[in-house]
């Protein structure tokens, strides 16, 4: 099956079906050609904060986990729990608590122009650009609960350059894994024949951008140039095949009848399907950078938890705001804990993907956080950061570290250094004073 997926990668490529199957037999195994481990980066963004006052583990090494973090017990030795990470850039955005936090959580850069998108780029996109991995996709980003995010446009490739989420798991499966059945060489389909000529088509498109821009205004040229840049990046991607691991197989997308990916009350199904797709996309080296973003923060009622949410309140969001007056926070804790169950499942699945002697988790960095720390107050101080993975031996896990007011931009600067940079700042420098020691 791994071979079929590799063939699929070639099929989408600018090289097309001219690349015959025998070539595949000589492809290298699990690892890219260069020295050192293959680093990967994955973000897991849950929403509406947490019960931050009870969230933190106790102890430093081999910490004792709180009730909310308890689902991570089985993978605790792969994690580092960070207390005291603040995102002050959210406070200077000036729209509302959700826009402020959602759009700065990965960018650390409020918007400074006449548009309400953040300045960007987000940390995942910077890492993807730095890695410049030979993968079919520069990054993949899935919206669990639908792709409509509006206020929570968290991922940015650059200023005014939002990165949209894919919200339909069936469409994602079709794009990444379907179309494996027919033999592209002896009996190509119409679509496969068209794809085999992608390079010629893209050449014409690039030429047309060049010739069209000449007679336009400066502002129009900027718009077209941005698009043309994306065409060139796409062309590069299309030529990439990645180096699938031995664990690469076609995932199963199993959804119940009546499944609607936009129905926030089916997020339990969406969550597992998208986690499986993301894990396999990484295992098959379709990308080395990913984001899983839960998109519903307002009114899911989490029916699969039977937790009594939203109880007497109009919706979940109102309930969260009323946490200080709830008395019994058990229902809220159950919801926040569920996100950690999903994170635990993700980490377990990553640990099963073989990469050389170990798993891809050994060589990757996973960041889990919410856009908010305290759901009730919508505060962004003390974000619930969980790091996981060994980052190729650079991160010692099974620890709780209190960073005591370090800023998220500073943590992200540390990330960039792990990924080979020598950065001293990430995001808006007003919120960053160099990397921190983790």
């Amino acid at each position, binding site marked *: 099956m791994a071979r079929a997926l590799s063939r699929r990668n070639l099929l989408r490529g600018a090289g097309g079906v001219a690349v015959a199957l025998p070539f595949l037999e000589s492809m290298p195994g699990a690892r890219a050609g260069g020295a050192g481990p293959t680093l990967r980066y994955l973000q897991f963004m849950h929403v509406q904060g947490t019960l931050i006052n009870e969230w933190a583990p106790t102890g430093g090494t081999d910490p004792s986990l709180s009730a909310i973090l308890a689902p991570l017990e089985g993978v605790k030795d792969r994690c580092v729990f960070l207390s005291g990470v603040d995102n002050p850039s959210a*406070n200077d955005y*000036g*729209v*509302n*608590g959700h826009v*402020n936090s959602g759009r700065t959580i990965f960018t650390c850069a409020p918007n400074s*122009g*006449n*548009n309400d*998108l953040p300045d960007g780029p987000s940390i995942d996109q910077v890492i993807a650009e730095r890695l410049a991995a030979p993968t079919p996709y520069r990054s993949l980003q899935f919206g669990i609960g639908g*792709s409509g995010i*509006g206020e929570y446009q968290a991922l940015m*490739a650059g200023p*005014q*350059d*939002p*990165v*949209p989420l*894919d919200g339909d798991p069936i469409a994602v499966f079709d794009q990444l894994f379907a179309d494996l059945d027919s033999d592209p060489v002896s009996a190509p389909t*119409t*679509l496969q*024949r*068209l*794809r085999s*000529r*992608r390079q*010629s*088509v893209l050449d*014409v*498109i690039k030429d*047309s*951008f060049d010739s*069209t*821009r000449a007679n*336009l*205004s*400066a*502002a*129009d040229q900027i*718009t*077209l140039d*941005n*698009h043309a840049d*994306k*065409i060139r*990046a*796409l062309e590069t*991607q299309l030529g990439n095949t990645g180096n699938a691991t031995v664990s690469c197989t076609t995932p199963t997308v199993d959804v119940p009848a009546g499944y*609607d990916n*936009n*129905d926030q*009350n089916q997020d339990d199904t969406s969550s597992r399907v998208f986690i499986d797709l993301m894990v396999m996309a990484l295992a098959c080296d379709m990308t080395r950078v990913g984001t899983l973003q839960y998109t519903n923060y307002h*009114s899911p009622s989490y029916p699969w938890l039977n937790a009594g949410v939203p109880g*007497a309140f*109009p*919706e979940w969001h109102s309930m969260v*705001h009323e946490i200080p*007056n709830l008395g019994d926070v058990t229902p809220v804790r159950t919801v926040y804990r569920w996100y950690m169950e999903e994170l635990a499942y993700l980490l377990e699945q990553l640990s099963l993907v073989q990469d050389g002697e170990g798993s891809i988790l050994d060589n990757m960095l996973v960041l889990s956080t919410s856009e908010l720390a305290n759901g009730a*107050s*919508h505060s962004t101080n003390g974000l619930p950061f969980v790091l996981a993975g060994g980052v190729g031996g650079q991160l010692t896990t099974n620890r709780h570290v209190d960073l005591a007011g370090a800023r998220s931009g500073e943590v992200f600067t540390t990330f960039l250094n792990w990924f080979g940079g020598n950065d001293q700042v990430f995001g808006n420098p007003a919120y960053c004073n160099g990397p921190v020691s983790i």
Partner: protein
Amino acid sequence: MGALVWAVCAGTGCYGGRDGIDGPGQADGDGGTDGEDGGDGPDDEPMGSGDPADGCGGMAAGLAPMRRMTAVQYANTVEDLFDGVVTPGTQFPPSEIHHEYTNNPTANVVSLSAAEDIMLAAEQAAEQVVDNVDLVVDCAGMAEAACAEAYVSDLAERAFRRPLRPGEHAQLMDLYAAGSAEDGFADGIGTVVAAILQMPQFLYLLEEGVGEVEADVLQLSDFELATRISYLLTDSMPDDELYAAAASGELADPDVIETHVRRLIADTARSGPALDRFFREWIHFDGVPAFDKDTDDFPQYDDALAASMDAELSQFVARVLTSGEPTLDQLLTSPSTRVDATMAAFYGLANVPADGQWVDVDLPAEQRPGLLSRPAFLAEHSTATSSAPIFRGRLVRTQLLCNEIPPPPDDAMANAPEYPPGATERERTEILMAHMNCGACHAVMNPIGLGFEHYDPIGAWRDLDIDGQPVDASGEVVGGPDEVTGTFDGVVELGTKLAASPEVEACFAQEFYRHSLGLERSQVLDCAIEPLQTAFVESGGNVEELLVSLARSNAFRLRALSEVE
């Protein structure tokens, strides 16, 4: 009149104060928000572009940042290009809503994944052309090569919406030659199609102009003008008649423009959905699926009812626009709509149409006056369980009065008041208004929304409130235009007052103008919008006349170049 962008809140917000917000709601002793000179608060300055009077010159030209086709426009254009043989599919990237309208350029910025989706959509269309090439290309009596030459010329000219430039035809024929050499005629044509549908000449509504009428103000070419008209009125490429008028130079005559605008409006099969889309985006309606409502409280709100409500919104708008009196007044007051069986049952009508039929009905005028009483509108501006006067009031403020409502302070929700169990929305509003400083902003929104209390969260009429007492639907507009300011009883009176207000007409004209070119409010220049507002008011708020005067205006026929930051 002029560019209507001003804040209505007091100098301090709900909590902790907000700097730099001032507005007539509190600052003007007389409560007048007449908006002369574009409002009188600091926030009325368009962000980043300086004085709104700048940049117009003497020509009343408007800004018009370059737009890419929306997803809807792409789908329609592909259908038109191939006479319905090709089904566009859903792979093309969706257009986000940005500053109300999906045709805003920022809503259609091309990300890397969008570039791939555009490619996949183009290939899907090309695949259908290859597999149905005999339906798409008529080669009767022609050799294949000559047929390909002719078809590619014709297709590209229609796709680019202008005659081809030197080099463009040869470039495409090279692609045809490569494809046909490997896999035959159909693949050659399909390869050309895959390219055209990704080219900037197709995807962007390019406006190079034919020279400057004054510094930084372009005169659009007739082809560019035809494209503007066509995408505004039909969300698709110019039809043959409009294209011929552009090619012959006739569109230079405003009377000819008017003839085509009226002709396209009358073609309701094409113009209806495009105009309907404006109304939906204007009132922030993007659909209320069944799962958006609490199933315990509203078990009747199922997929079928949600779909019928959604469709009734369009039926209502279409009936107003085709009534012979397509006015803002009718839009805000008319009890005439169309219903299917589901909506007839929802409204409690005795006569229920056959399944699938929509029939004209006049609903009780005291219950269902105009757009603001449409169930779909009301369901949209509610929560899952509550009628949400704040959302209904805010919508009136931002979309009918063109006010800007600043966001709540970050700590607003954390310091929200406590409400006793079972409190009505009116009681909750009273508590909120008295709580800390919340009334400073909520006074301009919630009291308007209380006038909608006869409608529950799915838009059904109710006589009794949740406490079993008769609904009190008295509301108040605080600090609005003189014709609107003051107390009112229910949506009947609110709609009548709004419809009679020149300010509301001016706001509507501004919103339609913004939609016509995908503009943010900060990009509306006074000198461009004021003639349109004046004409709209003088026409008695006639929407068709607004479309005509817009298409004839310099704001639409010229293009003031945007500054580059």
